[in-house]
């Protein structure tokens, strides 16, 4: 898949996952990789970028088995971003799909 395109989609996936509640990095990386073929290593730079843009906040919480985990919590700005990207995605994918169904 085209890397630039994938980057935008991954952003939407991460934002969407976090809309459903706080998660830690490993969890996010696994959830995304199980559905989309990516290198999990690229998830962390993306999370860091989104955090620096103010879409997430992070905090540390003890894990049951060892040292603290870094959790990501979506901000209001992040939720707005998710809504925007989702709308754009639905519009775009709808437009592409129309090529499959119509006789042009």
């Amino acid at each position, binding site marked *: 898949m085209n890397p630039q395109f994938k980057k935008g989609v991954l952003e939407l996936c991460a934002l969407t996952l976090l809309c459903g509640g706080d998660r*830690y*990095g*490993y*969890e996010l*990386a696994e959830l995304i*990789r199980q559905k989309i073929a*990516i*290198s*999990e*290593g*690229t998830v*962390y*730079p*993306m*999370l*860091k*970028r989104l955090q620096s843009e103010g879409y997430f906040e992070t905090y540390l919480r003890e894990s049951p*088995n*060892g*040292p603290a*985990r*870094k959790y990501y919590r979506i901000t209001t700005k992040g939720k707005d971003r998710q809504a925007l990207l989702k709308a754009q995605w639905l519009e775009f994918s709808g437009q592409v799909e129309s090529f499959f169904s119509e006789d042009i």
Partner: protein
Amino acid sequence: MNKNQFLNELYSYLGSLSNSEKADIMRDFDEHFREGASAGKTEEQICFELGSPLECAKQYVGEGVTVVNKVSRPAYPNPTNRPKSKYLWSLAFFLNLIEAIFSLPIAFSLFCVGTILVVLDFYLIPTVSFVPFTVLSVSLTLAVFLGSIIFLLLTAYVLKIMIKKINGEVRA
């Protein structure tokens, strides 16, 4: 590849980032390995799923990753890169050294003259006013100090931009 190899290689590519940023990134990946291990994965498997350390680093640093690690990617060495920035660093060092050699004695002597004038003014010769000279001396001292600091900051800034440019050119 195992955990240490992955983390070492990743770290070696993060050259231009600040130490706190590097520490934060290494923390994230270290946590990932811990979580993977407690989910029953081997280090090799986790490395495989993470992908290449170079690709990860590129996402943090941009395309201008400086490859200085001899273990990795023999195809990428950029011999012009490191000597050039090294040369720039020594140039900056000498510029600042020269600046310091000149400005410190000047500042110090101005400071001494100022102190003497103040002493003369208040304690020894109360009839003659040295105030204008004192003010002049103090402000000159301040000017020399400020000048040094501005010079230092300016050199550091120009150097940073130049090194970034060189790195960018080499990688592009």
